[in-house]
């Protein structure tokens, strides 16, 4: 069993010198444990009929450092707080982007906001994708639905620090072509030499112009050639899809040390106190949201 307190330390610098990770404790925003820092929304754009992209500018004077896959606790005054993944890579500084689905009351109120509206932020929180483990590996970056929001931070990181990794494949599945997040990014990734990016949708309405693949996300895996001994897969999406994707990956020879999954549970505090995000002895908010599948063995999640 890996100790829960064994904090990942990014003391080792990557080859990429665009940035380096600091000691996270010192580079958070928000005061005390529960008071958020106040920020204005810089701009808002539509991603899908249900998802909008929110951009916040972070002034140079603010020491904010995150790792790909971390999240913030976002406050909408009078509505409370919700965990939201940081969608841009730490290599792209000076701003934060959030892709947010209209899922309920808080996100509904957020979707009503305009540039200039004030929100609250605390964070970054959580253990993101363990970049040290991913370096020098072939990567399979797999996202379902909203899972592309956090995964994009890693994809951008890979783009900016390309030399640190070997082949990078992106597999992304959504319900319909409308629901694909980050359509222009996807188009660019499909074009680029940097990635092998494949997309699949569950179904397509008649007369829709979409000409890509139709089916379920796990179907993208069997045709791939995978060198199991130096490949690591990263999985972000609704947990319902995980057993099927994991099974397909295992068939390719990947063991549980080579599969990372993100487990997202409703969170109230983000700092390991409120109990809402517990998986046995883990708290998703401080031990996750990204876990190595190996570490989840024997937990209620693994069944």
């Amino acid at each position: 069993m890996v100790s829960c307190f064994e904090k990942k330390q990014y003391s080792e610098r990557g080859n990429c010198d665009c940035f380096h990770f600091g000691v996270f404790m010192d580079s958070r925003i928000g005061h005390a444990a529960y008071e958020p820092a106040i920020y204005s929304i810089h701009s808002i754009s539509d991603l899908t009929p249900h998802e909008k992209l929110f951009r916040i500018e972070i002034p140079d004077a603010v020491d904010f450092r995150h790792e790909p896959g971390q999240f913030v606790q976002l406050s909408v005054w009078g509505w409370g707080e919700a965990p939201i993944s940081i969608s841009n890579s730490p290599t792209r500084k000076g701003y934060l982007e959030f892709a947010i689905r209209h899922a309920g009351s808080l996100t509904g109120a957020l979707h009503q906001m305009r540039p200039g509206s004030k929100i609250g932020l605390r964070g970054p929180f959580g253990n993101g994708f363990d970049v040290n483990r991913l370096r020098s590996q072939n990567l399979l970056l797999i996202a379902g639905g909203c899972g592309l929001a956090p995964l994009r931070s890693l994809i951008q990181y890979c783009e900016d620090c390309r030399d640190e990794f070997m082949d990078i494949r992106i597999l992304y599945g959504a319900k319909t072509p409308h629901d694909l997040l980050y359509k222009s990014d996807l188009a660019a990734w499909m074009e680029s030499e940097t990635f092998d990016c494949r997309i699949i949708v569950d179904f397509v309405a008649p007369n829709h112009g979409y000409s890509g693949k139709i089916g379920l996300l796990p179907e993208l895996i069997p045709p791939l050639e995978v060198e199991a001994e130096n490949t690591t897969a990263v999985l972000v999406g609704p947990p319902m899809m995980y057993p099927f994707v994991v099974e397909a990956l295992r068939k390719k020879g990947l063991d549980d040390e080579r599969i990372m999954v993100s487990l997202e549970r409703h969170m109230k505090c983000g700092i390991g106190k409120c109990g809402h995000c517990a998986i046995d002895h883990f708290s998703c908010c401080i031990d996750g949201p990204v876990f190595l599948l190996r570490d989840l063995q024997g937990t209620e999640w693994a069944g």
Partner: protein
Amino acid sequence: MKTITCDQFHHFLYSIREDFEIVGPVILHDGTLSLGRLTAEPLALFAGRIPFRFTSLFFPHSERLFAMSDEYRFDKSGSSAKPLLVVGWRAEDLEALEFIDEFFRTGFRDDVFCDRRQSSVVIGVSGRCGVNGEFCRISEGKCDMELIYDGKHFIMAEYTENGRFLSEKIVWGEETDSLEALLQESRALRTPEREILQTASQLLMRNQVDDDFWAEIADRCIQCTSCTNVCPTCTCFDVYDMRLKRKIERYRMWDSCQMSGFMREASGHNPLASQSDRTRRRIRHKLVDDLHRWGRMTCFLCGRCDDVCPTGIGMKAVAAEIVERFG
């Protein structure tokens, strides 16, 4: 070490009433044992355990996390309440307090809890102080000061600076060295319930308790949440905003893992959908998960959940049943 009578101790408490908010067990007019402020009536130090979550003094049922004006300014006006002086906790209560102290301090410091806790003084009571004079285990150090009752007097053991500070203010009493016999009696107390709990913990850890068992226990649960409400080591809470005129206030309030809406995956799936899952969680969390995470079980056998559960499936009862059936 000094000895002091119960009357003398109360004299002392009255003498420091200006400086501290003094809280301890009190008997209400209708005879109920509760937690209350020191009044003209002496504290009920021999009346048994307070039947609810006494750690609520530091982690109240509901409390404000912050207030913010419509100009986005935080209200920094802290309360100038007097420091709390808490009297009357038993050894198992103090163990529970020690755990939640560690819980709220470790990793991210929960300043709302820690700030309140930091300025407080805790006085435990042990020795022959049970309802019928039975012996209550001596905590030997988990509080600022412990009053160990030898049947006639309290022997005062000071464990911290705060404890010594208070003790120096106590002008009454005689010196004694008679603690050793009481300590030996305390250490020799048999703890069969602890053994049952440990065995249950091991059986759970080895996955020897089957799903049918949980279904059966859960069948008897009416989801009243009394068990989690009284437990001194339960720390779960929910967070919500109140909209007031020209400001919002954010609060936290106790929550219970026994309620069906407690947990959700971001996708909407409920990982604790059945009461069977939730009952299993209630027991396993304290006997297995916290052992992994915190190095110890976090049920200290205070017995409160067994006292309040209307259907008889508190921690001790369930642990005993696990051992009986699977041990």
